């Protein structure tokens, strides 16, 4: 259960950090289920020999699974998860089994549109070595105190 203090629109200003969250260690046993849900049997995610033949240390965790933790970092913190409005996320490094992923964000802009209080933020994910694995931006709505 997420225990981070939730924010209201008036609490946020550009440059503020969104409370971070960490997940892991990543579990390779989930990769088969992930492959089935995505219907993506790319051997890079399932076959250690195939991955090593391509110069990788182990199978690569599926990108959408990495992304799920970055989404969750935001949506668990929002008052209502579907207050998320848009995201743009770039995959910059591979995630491997046993990695621990930390998710972070910084407020870029607060604004209003059609009566909705909105926040743009930069978001990123890094592994236990401090290497960024995902970088991106997101926009979400927040309730106002008044």
């Amino acid at each position, binding site marked *: 259960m997420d225990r981070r203090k939730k924010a209201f629109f008036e609490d946020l200003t550009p440059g503020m950090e969104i409370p971070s969250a960490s997940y892991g260690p990543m579990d390779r046993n989930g990769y088969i*289920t992930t492959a089935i*849900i995505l219907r*993506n049997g790319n051997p*890079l995610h399932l076959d250690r020999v195939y991955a090593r033949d391509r110069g990788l240390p182990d199978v690569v965790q599926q990108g959408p699974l990495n*992304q799920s933790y970055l*989404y*969750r970092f935001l*949506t668990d913190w929002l008052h209502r998860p*579907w207050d998320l409005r848009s995201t743009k996320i*770039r995959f910059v490094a591979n995630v491997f089994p046993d990695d621990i992923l930390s998710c972070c964000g910084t407020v870029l802009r607060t604004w209003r549109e059609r009566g909705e209080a909105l926040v743009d933020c930069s978001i990123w994910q890094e592994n236990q070595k401090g290497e960024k694995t995902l970088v991106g931006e997101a926009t979400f709505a927040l309730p106002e105190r008044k």
Partner: protein
Amino acid sequence: MIQDRKALIGRVLPPFSYVIDAENVHDYLRVTDEDLATYRDAGSSRAAGYDRHVIPPSFAPWIALSALLRSIDWERDFYLDYRIGTLMFGEQEMRYARPLYVGESLIFTANVLDVIEKRGSRAFDVVTIGYDAADNRGAVVLSGACGFILFK
């Protein structure tokens, strides 16, 4: 010999229907340890203010990718040879018009927006595919773009 994928820009992919399957959502919640009560069942979703059993927003990118992966034949349409080539996700952009619910059916329409050739230690193409997903009333509920990296 890899064919030039730039010729694919503008190609419209066949529409694809995707049903948000309850078992997939259940498995997804288990794999990702998403434990927010809101997603547990219809009653919990309603208690959190949603119309019916809502999925986590984090599952929406999986839906989009899965739908695209089902509508694309990488070997036939994008000349990917799995014996020598590799496919990876590069970037994903999403816009959410409303919450998505377990059991609903979405129709995806997609087209190839761009193909950019790049060269690092190996040559690769970045193929960007844009998409809209409409509900059974024809309203677009999800839209965005996915960038796939195809190593040559």
